[in-house]
């Protein structure tokens, strides 16, 4: 494979794309809502109307507005239809521009949420999701037609590893897995490590119970991850990569397997990629349902076939990771940013976002909000814009009370702070974290003590048991929260709760234990009244 062949594939694909194309979401929520049957019926309706060969029907990835699925979009006009049932297929075909005068079936109304007029779409800026919902994730040709693998070409043929790292550093990209560690710096450390073998890992374990960004990217645009990993591997000098993906995501696994096979076939993975001396292989590892395996050292233990138990750092994976070799580990979304940064340059990327948080962030907006789904917004967008404008607020005229970010390691941000711009620093200041991108809206009916207890139960179940503060502390915290919830506690219990939170936070071994008290601390801070209201004989609320 060389650049000419790559461009030839893209050109062939572009010629096909001039036609009208009906794109159906066939992943995630839409798949569960019968999206495949919609697609099959559309194909049938097209044939019946004698349009076979003139109009294409294709399955694509996530279009974002999951709560209104199954979604269907007619291109090139971009008209979106929502809540499409298989029976609607004939109506959609009857509404195609050139079918208007032939009254075969009653037409159906397009969605009130059009990509060009609703803030849910217009407020977005898509880098990671630029191809999601546009290309067929099961065809490498469509990724190539969307400029795919050109970044890898440029890197292998025109750049040395140092300048790749320099580009990523200058872009200001930070890890999207939760911590926000500067990606360029991490790459540099691994590149500098002296070793004849190095590994690279994509963390696709997405443990936050309420987040599905990574799932969506893997299902909708798997080649982007492969390309991002290959670029990183070249930069740090690795020739073997692993993707550790949750067992709960069968479609993502399937699309990744297909993507790896296709990339190998075209020589975009394997030996001497783009006729350069660079070799790179990727293998999948399927997780088996343990939250702690999202933590990097536990994840590596799991790849080695062991129980997913973290070990203290240092040594960091960059020095001694998988089987003791230097290892680079990044999140799915981090890798997904890489091909575009290489193609468009670090200056382009660093213009987006805030001073310290560059680029965009994908959020999975869920909970008590009208429009749930996936959104990608520039860093610095406010929660107000996300919840009220993009999400259309709480259903049935309810009032939002808080947004939970960062899952079991994060916290709840109350409505009065919704004007906070979303970036790493601002969210930490409020006692929450950016986390991997789950944003769950809670309304007046949600009790915050319940929420704290819910997350503590999660951490208690998921604690691996290696260190005592986390193993025993989460149990104690859970019991205290239960006691408060049942109205059997006193003010002294509240003090005990706070002291215990502090202890678990300070002394646990890994991030799981160290952040487990966060939901309690943040709800105590912002919603103390709800705790006090549950304490008998306490009136000074």
């Amino acid at each position, binding site marked *: 494979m060389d650049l000419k062949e790559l461009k030839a594939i893209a050109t062939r694909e572009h010629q096909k794309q001039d036609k009208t194309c009906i794109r159906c979401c066939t992943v*995630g929520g839409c798949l569960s809502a019968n999206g495949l049957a919609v697609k099959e019926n559309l194909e049938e309706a097209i044939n019946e109307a004698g349009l076979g060969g003139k109009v294409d029907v294709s399955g694509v990835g996530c279009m974002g507005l*999951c709560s209104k699925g199954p979604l269907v979009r007619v291109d090139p006009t971009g008209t979106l239809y929502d809540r499409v049932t298989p029976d609607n297929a004939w109506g959609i075909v009857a509404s195609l521009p050139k079918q208007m005068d032939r009254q075969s079936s009653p037409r159906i109304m397009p969605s009130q949420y059009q990509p060009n007029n609703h803030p849910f779409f217009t407020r977005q800026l898509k880098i990671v999701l630029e191809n999601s919902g546009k290309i067929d994730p099961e065809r490498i040709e469509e990724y190539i037609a969307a400029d795919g693998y050109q970044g890898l070409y440029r890197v292998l043929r025109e750049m040395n590893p140092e300048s790749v790292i320099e580009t990523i550093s200058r872009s200001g990209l930070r890890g999207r897995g939760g911590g926000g560690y500067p990606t360029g710096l991490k790459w540099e450390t691994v590149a500098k490590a002296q070793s004849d073998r190095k590994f690279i890992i994509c963390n696709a374990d997405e443990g936050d*119970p309420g987040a599905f960004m990574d799932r969506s990217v893997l299902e909708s645009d798997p080649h982007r991850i492969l390309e991002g990993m290959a670029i990183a591997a070249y930069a740090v000098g690795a020739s073997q990569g692993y993707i550790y993906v949750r*067992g709960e995501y069968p479609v993502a696994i399937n699309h990744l397997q297909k993507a790896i096979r296709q990339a190998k076939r075209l020589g975009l993975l394997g030996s001497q990629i783009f006729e350069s001396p660079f070799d790179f292989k990727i293998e999948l590892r399927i997780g*088996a*349902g*343990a939250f702690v395996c999202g933590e990097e050292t536990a994840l590596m233990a799991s790849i080695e076939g*062991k129980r997913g138990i973290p070990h203290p750092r240092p040594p960091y994976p960059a020095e001694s990771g998988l089987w003791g070799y230097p290892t680079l580990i990044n999140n799915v979304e981090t890798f997904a940013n890489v091909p575009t940064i290489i193609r468009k340059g670090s200056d382009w990327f660093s213009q987006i976002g805030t001073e310290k948080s560059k680029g965009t962030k994908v959020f999975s907006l869920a*909970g008590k909000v009208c429009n*749930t789904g996936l959104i990608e917004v520039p860093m610095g967008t406010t929660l107000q814009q996300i919840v009220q404008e993009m999400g259309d607020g709480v259903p049935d005229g309810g009032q939002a009370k808080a947004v939970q970010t960062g899952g079991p390691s994060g916290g709840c941000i109350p409505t009065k702070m919704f004007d906070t711009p979303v970036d790493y620093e601002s969210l930490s200041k409020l006692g929450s974290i950016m986390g991997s991108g789950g944003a769950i809206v809670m309304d007046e009916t949600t009790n915050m003590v319940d929420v704290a207890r819910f997350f503590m139960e999660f951490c208690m179940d998921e604690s691996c048991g290696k260190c005592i503060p986390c193993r025993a502390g989460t149990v104690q915290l859970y019991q205290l929260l239960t006691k408060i919830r049942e109205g059997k506690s006193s003010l002294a219990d509240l003090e005990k709760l706070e002291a215990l939170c502090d202890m678990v936070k300070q002394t646990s071994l890994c991030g799981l234990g160290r952040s487990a008290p966060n939901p309690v601390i943040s709800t105590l801070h912002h919603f103390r009244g709800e705790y006090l209201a549950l304490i008998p004989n306490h009136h000074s609320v």
Partner: protein
Amino acid sequence: MPITQKNPQTHPSSDKRFRMLAATMKRYQYASDALIEVLHQAQELFGYLEEDLLLYIAHGLKLPPSRVYGVATFYHFFSLKQKGAHTCVVCMGTACYVKGAANLLTTLEQQYQVQAGDTTSNNQLSLVTARCLGACGIAPAVVVDGNVEGHQTAESVIHRVEECLHHGS
């Protein structure tokens, strides 16, 4: 024939599934770090991981049985108990929780007289909980016999489970 380190491929029963499992182990060259992949395959073939099966794998990969047992019990995905003919998984992730998943679960527990994590006494239905299926956009979500169903209510989930129990789909 006893299972020995020399002939991990053979198993005394003529069950074809053991041969398929042996092929998987061979594909990974009996490497001990393939343990989780092998367990995945074993559970797919047999439905759950019996003690005998764990021993067989331990021999095949030349690992102490304690290590195999330790790994199999560490991960939620692996089940050491036989499952019912049908399964209903209720998502208890955050998005589903704030949309009333706990209510779905209690309804199911009461209707079928079974605790979450258990199987009904007639072995027809296993009720399981999960932590986020990645279907938060259509919360609350359940999985009935492998099919994800979104926007559930107490009535709709019972209706769906009844369909499965009576018509097998």
